[in-house]
């Protein structure tokens, strides 16, 4: 059961990794690369707390094998803003109080980011539909939806 050599771009940085076939993307991110923003919740792809962007698509990293990803681009919550400037969604989540325990927040923000990237001004219904991909057990979603809505009203649609 040999190791596999994988080329991966994580948060803009290209890297070569030797991974075991059974290693999940979440394990690679957390245990090898110390990117602990993505959280392990259910571990079975149901809750969405491990969501990262895989080639721009929100993906549950706990049920993806790193071996599948040769040549892929991964964005984690650490790669979204930088130390001086946060992503508008991160600002908005703080402003609106859309964070309580914070465990679901990285996944929530990345799911919302991918929605706004493909549709800068979604309707409230579209936001609700997209955000229902991720489980939150404390805020009750109202503030999360409001936080996404606030950003969408400020972002201009892409031509």
């Amino acid at each position: 059961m040999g190791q596999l050599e994988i080329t991966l771009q994580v948060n803009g940085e290209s890297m070569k990794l030797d991974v075991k076939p059974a290693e999940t993307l979440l394990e690679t991110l957390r245990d090898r690369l110390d990117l602990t923003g993505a959280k392990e919740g259910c571990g079975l792809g149901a809750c969405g707390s491990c969501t990262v962007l895989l080639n721009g698509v929100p993906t549950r990293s706990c049920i993806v094998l790193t071996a599948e990803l040769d040549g892929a681009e991964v964005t984690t919550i650490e790669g979204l803003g930088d130390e001086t400037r946060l992503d508008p969604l991160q600002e908005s989540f703080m402003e609106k109080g859309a964070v309580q325990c914070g465990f679901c927040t990285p996944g929530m923000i990345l799911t919302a980011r991918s929605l706004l990237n493909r549709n800068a001004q979604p309707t409230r219904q579209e936001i609700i539909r997209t955000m229902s991909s991720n489980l939150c057990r404390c805020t009750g979603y109202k503030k999360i939806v409001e936080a996404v809505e606030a950003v969408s009203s400020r972002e201009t649609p892409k031509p």
Partner: protein
Amino acid sequence: MIASRFEYRNPQDIDEAVRLYLEFQGDAVYLSGGTDLVPRMKLGLEKPGAVIDLKRILPLTTIEDQGDWVRIGGLARIFDLKQNELIKNFFPALEASLEATSCESLQMRGTIGGNLLQNSRCLFYNQSEFWRRSKGFCLKMGGESCNAVPGAKTCFANYCSDNAPALCTLSAEIEFTGPDGLRRLNLEALYTNKADKPFDLRPGEILTAILLPKKKTIGGYKKLRVRGAIDYPLLGVAFSFANGSGKLAVGAVGPKPYVVEVKQPARDNIGEAVKTVLKQARPVGNTVLDPDYRKRMISVFAARLVNKVMKGAK
């Protein structure tokens, strides 16, 4: 964590994939989106010697208008399919079932072929190895009897594809490619009616396509679940109607979708159709909802769905 060890391969075409399967002497599984397979591997329900990833085989992802048929590649993503104009215009029951499948993020990963070939589910089966060992293995794990219905010698796991019932109402056919070449059959013929081994699959076969007769239909899909997203169906009812005849299919209350013709006028004959389904469906206490309730909801959901769909009929 996936406790078992396996080899990983990513063939570039179907022939190579089948060849690899034979090379590993059948001790291999095909991987598409992985939203069913990887959780099963994590729970120790699958321990393959090799995982053969089909995602590099691009022809498997296409949706094609072939004149009399619409051909959907086995690896077409649920999210792409539900936005396809052909699907929306001709097969509204399928559009609705795709929309009801899990949640957006998982629709972007999961494929239609994987959705159809997802294994049947049970509260006493989809558990960690530690949990299952403590309880004692059930029939589906090679044990002596069922854990959901103590003492039973039949498995009662539910087949939880949302899209299978919709595809059955549309008279879908499926195409496999395997070591012996191509095999094409009605989707309904895929099911063995045995929950512990739900599919009539031959070793090494890949579900390469789903074929739908290109005929304009009206229809819909109605799903019972506790939460409005992500959850598997606790009951799924699909209905399609075209040229004076309709088909009803009921899923997630047994090892296969139960499919019946609904004579015209559909609204008057739905009771009769549901009776036929109720003779076969056998919900037991192996989900988070009471089996009697799920059984009662079959007629309620079927009547509501057929009424709604037929209101749109000319």
